[in-house]
Every structure is written in structure tokens, then in C-alpha cells.
């Protein structure tokens, strides 16, 4: 383990401790904001696990998230909350495996298109099942979990995602993904099973996203398809992750924090303009911030190191 990595882990430890103290210091608006930020950090980092190395823009986030919510909504009657979360993760992973098996063997465009309508599809099917078979549209999720509890669960999930991401980066799978990301043809010639690697990664990412949904379910109190499968969420995750940059595991962090705050402000004050903001954010990313903010930071560090080296030489 390099010195840089040890420093990074120390830093992460301090950050987590600070975060864990948060619910004791604040409540109400700021705690809700903190939960939102934690939620999007979990979602974006999980999204990046798959979409970062493969460069495939997944819009399935809202579908996985909704599955997670429903897992808790149904499971909470029979299971303790942590087990319901795990079930949610499992359901998300299974769904991801099915979607991945159908689309990830083909060229990337098919995957993007397929995920584009996935949340809407899930919404239609769940609505249909609930109205035709169960006779009611919504489900009550009544728990005594406070925002503070949800915050801890999310924090634990974030740690789990980061550790998983770090382990993947050091594993054969992570190495295979880097080769695939650079050149799929080369990867195939090395004997890497391209489709299988992508599917495994998609399953991991989908599972985590569903777990985040399962954690958030108590906040909804009353779950109905239209609120559980909210397609805008998929796009928000893409924007935040890309804004932060997907080359590094911590990249999305940089995008999530400012963007969640800005979104919160705009949706509170100018709810009519939220789509315009999303549109402009996409254009900003494509035209000005190709590698995200973390890409800019990397570049700045590289040039600084470069000038220092040059200074040492002369």
C-alpha cells in the first residue's frame, strides 16, 4: 500500500467520523440535506462502479432504486430493516443480471436505449400489478426510523461501496475492466470475457443502488409507483457523477455535494426551471468539463508536479 493510499484512508476515516457526528449537531433542514447528499454519493459512486470503466451511460438507476423501495415496503412486515435492505440489494442485483444479460452482449447504444425507458417500464408494470391483482395502488411503510438513522445506514452503505470499488480496482476484474475501457478489441484478444465482466459489474452496481432505495423507503411513508420510479433521478445521478468525474473512485463526491445543494435551492425556489438546469448541466459537462472536476484536479496536480520536476532539474 503506497503512502498516498494510507494518507487517503486516514483522511476517509476522519471524514466518516465527522459525518457520523452530524446527526447529533443538526436536525431538520440540514439533516435532510445531508441525507440527500449521502444518498446521491451512494448512488453516484455505485453508478460509477459500472459506468466509469465501461463508458456506458446507464439510466437504470431509478429502476433499481424503485425496486429497493418496494423490497422494503413489502419486506418490512416480515423482516427486520437491515435484512429488508439486503433483500432489496439482492432483488436489484437479479434485475441487473437479467437486463445485463439481454443488452450488454450487444453494442453500447442498445444498452443506453434499453435503460432509458426502464424506470417507466417498471412503473407501468408495478401499477398494473397493484391495481389489477392487489387492488390498491400504494403501500404504507411505517417504521420508527428517523432521518438520522437513515443517514447512518447510508453512511455504512457508502463505506461498503467504496471498499468494494477499491477491491475491484485491485482485482483481476478491475484490471480487465481497464483493458476493456481502453480498447475492447484488445481485451477480447487477451481472452477477457468482455460481456461477462460487464454484467458482473452491472450486477454489483445495481445491487448497491437498490440497497440505497431500500434504505430510503421509510422516508416515503406511503410508496406508490409514480414516486418510487422517478426517472429524473437517473439523470441526476449521471450528471453528478460526470460532473465530478468518473476516472477516480472519489470523483463523483466532488460533483454530488455542490450539485445537490444547487438542485435543492432551485427546486425550492424555481421548480419550473429544474429541467432547464438539468439540460444546461449536461451541455456544460459535454462541452467544458469532459473529465469532470476530478479530471481538472488531476490535471492541475500533474502540471504542478511537472513544473516542480522541471524546477528541480534547472
Amino acid at each position: 500500500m503506497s503512502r498516498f493510499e494510507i494518507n487517503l484512508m486516514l483522511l476517509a476515516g476522519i471524514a466518516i467520523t465527522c459525518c457520523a457526528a452530524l446527526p447529533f449537531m443538526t436536525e431538520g433542514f440540514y439533516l435532510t440535506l445531508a441525507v440527500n447528499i449521502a444518498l446521491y454519493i451512494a448512488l453516484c459512486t455505485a453508478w460509477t462502479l459500472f459506468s466509469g470503466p465501461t463508458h456506458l451511460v446507464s439510466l437504470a438507476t431509478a429502476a433499481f432504486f424503485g425496486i429497493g423501495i418496494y423490497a422494503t415496503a413489502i419486506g418490512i412486515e416480515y423482516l427486520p430493516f437491515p435484512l429488508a435492505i439486503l433483500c432489496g440489494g439482492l432483488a436489484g442485483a437479479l434485475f441487473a443480471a437479467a437486463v445485463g444479460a439481454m443488452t450488454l452482449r450487444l453494442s453500447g447504444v442498445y444498452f443506453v436505449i434499453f435503460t432509458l425507458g426502464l424506470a417507466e417500464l417498471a412503473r407501468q408494470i408495478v401499477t398494473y400489478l397493484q391495481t389489477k391483482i392487489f387492488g390498491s395502488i400504494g403501500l404504507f411503510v411505517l417504521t420508527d426510523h428517523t432521518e438520522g438513522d437513515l443517514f447512518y445506514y447510508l453512511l455504512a452503505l457508502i463505506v461498503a461501496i467504496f471498499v468494494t470499488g477499491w477491491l475491484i480496482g485491485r482485482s483481476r476484474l478491475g484490471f480487465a475492466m481497464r483493458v476493456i475501457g481502453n480498447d475492447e478489441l484488445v481485451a477480447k484478444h487477451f481472452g477477457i470475457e468482455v460481456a461477462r465482466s460487464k454484467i458482473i459489474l452491472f450486477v454489483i452496481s445495481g445491487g448497491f443502488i437498490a440497497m440505497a432505495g431500500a434504505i430510503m423507503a421509510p422516508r416515503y411513508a406511503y410508496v406508490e409507483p409514480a414516486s418510487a420510479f422517478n426517472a429524473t433521478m437517473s439523470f441526476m445521478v449521471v450528471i453528478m457523477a460526470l460532473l465530478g468525474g468518473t476516472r477516480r473512485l472519489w470523483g463523483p463526491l466532488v460533483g454530488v455535494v455542490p450539485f445537490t445543494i444547487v438542485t435543492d435551492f432551485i427546486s425550492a425556489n424555481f421548480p419550473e426551471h429544474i429541467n432547464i438546469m438539468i439540460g444546461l448541466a449536461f451541455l456544460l459537462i459535454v462541452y467544458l468539463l469532459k473529465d469532470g472536476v476530478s479530471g481538472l484536479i488531476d490535471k492541475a496536480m500533474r502540471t504542478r508536479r511537472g513544473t516542480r520536476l522541471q524546477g528541480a532539474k534547472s
Partner: protein
Amino acid sequence: MTILVTGILLGGTYALIALGLTLQYGVARIMNLSNGETLVAACFSAWLLFTTTGINPLWGLLIIAPLGFVANGAIYLGLLRPLVRRATSQGMLEVDSILATFGLLFLFEGLMHLGFGGAYFNYQFLAVPFKFLGGSYALNRITAFGAAAAIALALYLFLYKTRMGTAVRAVAVDPEAARLVAIDVGLIAAFAFGLGGAITACGGVLLSTFYTFNASMGAVFTMKALIIVIMGGVGDVRGAVIAALILGVMETLVASLIDPGLTLAATYGLFVLILLFRPQGLFGGAAG
């Protein structure tokens, strides 16, 4: 029988929308996810023309289609060409153009939402029953189908019988080889992108004559158009038309026999079948 005819009538309009998209993707190599916004903008333009000046939507086509051409051409030249120039590989262009057109999708949707609100719009044009093959259908649907068929036929003749159309098809097959035979690929790509926009706009105008529309339905139509394009095979005019008719019939079947809330699920079912069994399109060759 009624279902079949209604489905085919609906499919005619879908075909135009999908033809626009397949031109943009097949020739200009841009996956234009904001295609549905062109459609919605055309719906609103037709509505405005009809309600304020009383211009018949069919004449409105003559105004709105050129506008669609100019607007889409401008988007290509202004926003998408820089991406084409900077891309080092097809994959990179794909990701960039998907993200950029997502941006446009949200931007235009947001603007139209500001302008018209979230309410549903429609207007009465030829809303009279028409007896046909033992069933009764709205005359506006039949007119829309006829107009769509005429436009699709004109497009077909243009692509297969004129010199310019041949150049467009050449770029669709291989941009590099097209350049070798002195075709201005950049110009043709911009032209095809604009033409695709114009065709989609025509689809929008026709759709508005019989369909209730609102500012935020663009993405759903983009989705349907994408599925039709993939089903028919990218850049394949005949394939897109047949796929659109199949989708129209399928949707009408599900909506009238099972549940109107499940139309997208029906579309997806079709999509899954295509992905599993014929990812190269209904009439595509082995290369996929």
C-alpha cells in the same frame, strides 16, 4: 379488425418520426435523443397556427417542415459538429452525442414547459367519423396516415432516385469511402440531420391532428422511435416503416385488450424480442 386498422393508422405517424431519427443516426451518426422534442415543438406549432390563424395543419406542414429542417441543421452545425471533430473514435462520439442530446432534451422540454405549462392540448380538425371496412374511424387519423404515406414515399423516391439521395445513402454506408468519390461528407451529414428533423416535424404535425399532446411527452416518443429504428435496422427506410406499423398494431392491441397503461411494456416486450433474436434489425444482414 378495428384494432388492426387503428394500429396501422397510428403506425403511419410513428413511421415518419422514426424515419427522421434513422436519417439522423444512420447518416449523421448522431444518436439524437432530443428528437422527440422536435416532434413536440411541431405539435405546438401546428396547434398555434391552427388556433390563432386557422391554418389547416396540412398546409402548416409547408411552414413547419422547413423550420424543422433549419432548426435541426443549425443544431448539428452549431453544437454537434464540434463533437464529431473532436471525437477520436466512434464510441467516444456516441457517448458525447448521447450526453449532449440529453442536454438538449431537457433544455427544450424545460423551455416548452415554461411556455405552455404541463397541461394537455388538442384541437378539433376533421374530427368526423369515416366508415371504412365495416368500422368507423376518425377522418383525421385517416388523413394523417395518407399524408404520412405520401411523405414517406417522397423520401423514398428522393433517397433512391436522385443523385443527392444516393450521396446520402453512400455516407450512411461508409463515410470514408464516400469521401473518396468526392462527396462532401460534412455537408451531407448536416443535410441529413436537418432532413431528419424536418421529417420528424411532419410526424409531429400529423400526430397533433388526432392526439392529445403535452410539453413533456417528447422522451416517450424518442424511446418509441429508437425502438422502431433498431427493429427496422439502422438507416433502413423500409425496415423502419414496417417496424413502425408492427409497433402501432401491437400498442393498439395491448391498449384495447389488456390495459392502456401497459403500452410501454408492450413496446419493451417487442424490444426485448428483437434484442434477443434479431439485434441487427428485421431485415438486416449478418453484420450487427
